[in-house]
């Protein structure tokens, strides 16, 4: 248990009657990139949202089981989800920039968490975050234009910038590169690698290559079950479960 950042045990998630996550237990390590893979609709996003309690916002969603971060039960009544989410940042699957300027989108987190000491400090954080998210060149001349006027991929990168600007301990990224071209994807992957030095990153991806490239651990979900979890290399070269095998081998993209 030296290096476990997140530990989930027997997690069940229901949307109304729909049993979306079935008894998932997993231990996510610190300073590691963990990839969640699996067919669309298998529950990756749902599980991810359990880790920072974003599922709380969905009325019909019910979560049971035990999830610990740094050995603390995040569903403990004493835990403040706000603090949790500051610690566990998230990039959503669908880019959701605020209807504010690009600058304000990125500055929002640092402002509410009081991470910047002054305007100059804030400017710096914004620039650094946009640079890391590979959006700076495109955005630097239009920082005051609304974030909703960006292209799909730009919005996605804006959301990444927004998430890293708050300097979370754990970063959950739900398909962060789905709308990105290969070059931007490479830059984001580089970012993820850099983040790994100090943080724990969980990334959902449909690209096996990406999972193989950036992650050290991979979890394969299928129909709400965690089928297999282990070292990425092993999962891709020598999976234990036939379902993993067939998902991996049916690979195309």
């Amino acid at each position: 248990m030296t290096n476990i950042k997140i530990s989930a045990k027997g997690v069940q998630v229901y949307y109304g009657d729909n049993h979306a996550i079935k008894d998932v237990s997993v231990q996510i390590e610190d300073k590691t990139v963990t990839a969640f893979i699996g067919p669309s609709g298998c529950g990756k996003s749902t599980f991810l949202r359990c880790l920072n309690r974003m599922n709380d916002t969905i009325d019909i969603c019910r979560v049971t089981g035990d999830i610990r971060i740094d050995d603390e039960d995040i569903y403990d009544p004493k835990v403040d989800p706000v603090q949790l989410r500051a610690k566990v940042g998230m990039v959503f699957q669908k880019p959701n920039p605020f209807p504010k300027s690009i600058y304000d989108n990125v500055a929002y987190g640092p402002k509410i968490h009081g991470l910047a000491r002054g305007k100059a400090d804030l400017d710096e954080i914004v620039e650094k975050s946009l640079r890391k998210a590979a959006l700076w060149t495109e955005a630097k001349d239009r920082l005051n234009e609304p974030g909703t006027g960006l292209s799909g991929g730009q919005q996605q990168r804006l959301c990444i910038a927004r998430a890293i600007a708050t300097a979370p301990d754990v970063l959950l990224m739900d398909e962060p590169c789905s709308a990105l071209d290969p070059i931007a994807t490479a830059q984001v992957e580089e970012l993820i690698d850099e983040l790994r030095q100090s943080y724990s990153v969980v990334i959902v991806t449909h690209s096996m290559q990406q999972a193989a490239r950036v992650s050290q651990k991979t979890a394969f979900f299928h129909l709400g079950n965690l089928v297999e979890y282990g070292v990425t290399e092993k999962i891709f070269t020598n999976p234990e479960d036939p379902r993993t095998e067939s998902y991996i081998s049916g690979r195309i993209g």
Partner: protein
Amino acid sequence: MLPLSVPFFTTIGLAVVGYLLARRRALTVASGDSRVLNALPHQHGLNTALSTLLPPLAVMLLWALVVRIGARRDLVLAPENPVFTYILLIGLAATGFVLSLLRISRDFRARNASERWIMALLIFASTIAILTTLGIVLSMVTETYSFFGQYDWRDFFFSTTWSPNFRGGSDLGIIPLIWGTLYISFIALVFAVPVGLFAAVYLSEYASPRLRSVAKPMIEILAGIPTIVYGLFALVTVGPLLRDYFAAPMGLGQSASSVMTAGLVMGIMLIPFVSSLSDDIINAVPQAMRDGSLGLGATKSETIRQVVIPAALPGIVGAVLLAASRAIGETMIVVLGAGAAARLSLNPFEAMTTVTVKIVSQLTGDTDFASPETLVAFALGLTLFVITLGLNVVALFIVRKYREQYE
């Protein structure tokens, strides 16, 4: 207008028949397979119904207008025998009916045709707002003109005393009235906007669906209680209370009627104007916006203040404008709560009055109806109209400036 009811109902009947027939015919033309049609059978029906209905209705409206204008000039334009009118109108309906039925074919774009009719209706509806404005201005302008014929406009706009007098020689300065209007409305809004907004936020973001479904209609009752009840509440309860516990101890006067009394009570009445509509608008902000903010570790209130409310701002401003408008137009609460004395003072515990109150009282008073003391009501009305217009222009620019459009 009355004899037109015969062609009116005939036309409506014809339109209904037209709808059914056109649908039928469209299907027949398509040999029962609606897929080969360029438009849905329903759209064919709608087009025929509207083609039948709208031209005679428009003619009827225009015709009634012309006849009335003629009557004002002592011209008898309406034919002796209404049968001619009947024939004209029903003929028109029948023409639309037949022509539109004949146009039905596989290629006929009935959707576009029917949408053109609907668009005409939409435009017509929009013009009613313009016509209302025109009507308001016109119905007040002649009297205003004759007021300024009898009373110097400089005194009206710049004098700081308002004291009408039966024997003439009145001071009819609008300034204290405008001051009272702005002051009372301001206090009412200072109370109603935060309370309404917080109520809206709580209802849409925090309250359980059950609380919400009960509390919202309940708060809306506040908008439906006749203002005289509020007025009496101000007079009997709030006024003395404010006087005894605030004004008198603070040495701000002994008046039970005050700007503060009227403002607070009016504020209560305005709560639902702000809360209900804002609640609907806040509710319409997509969940993804909230998730984005919560996901960054923002608290719910931070999310609401910095993401949800800015996104809902145009609607909220609309709600506030509605409340402000109502405050400016209110009479009874002011009469009973703030008194009838026109006064220029900064002390919120003094009695003051508003333009609207004076419009009503001068209009329903006992002075000679051709005297400036009565006619001033029209000048007040028109001036208020221009002032609120100015305020609304400012509001529009503010909304433009801060508008945030989510996707």
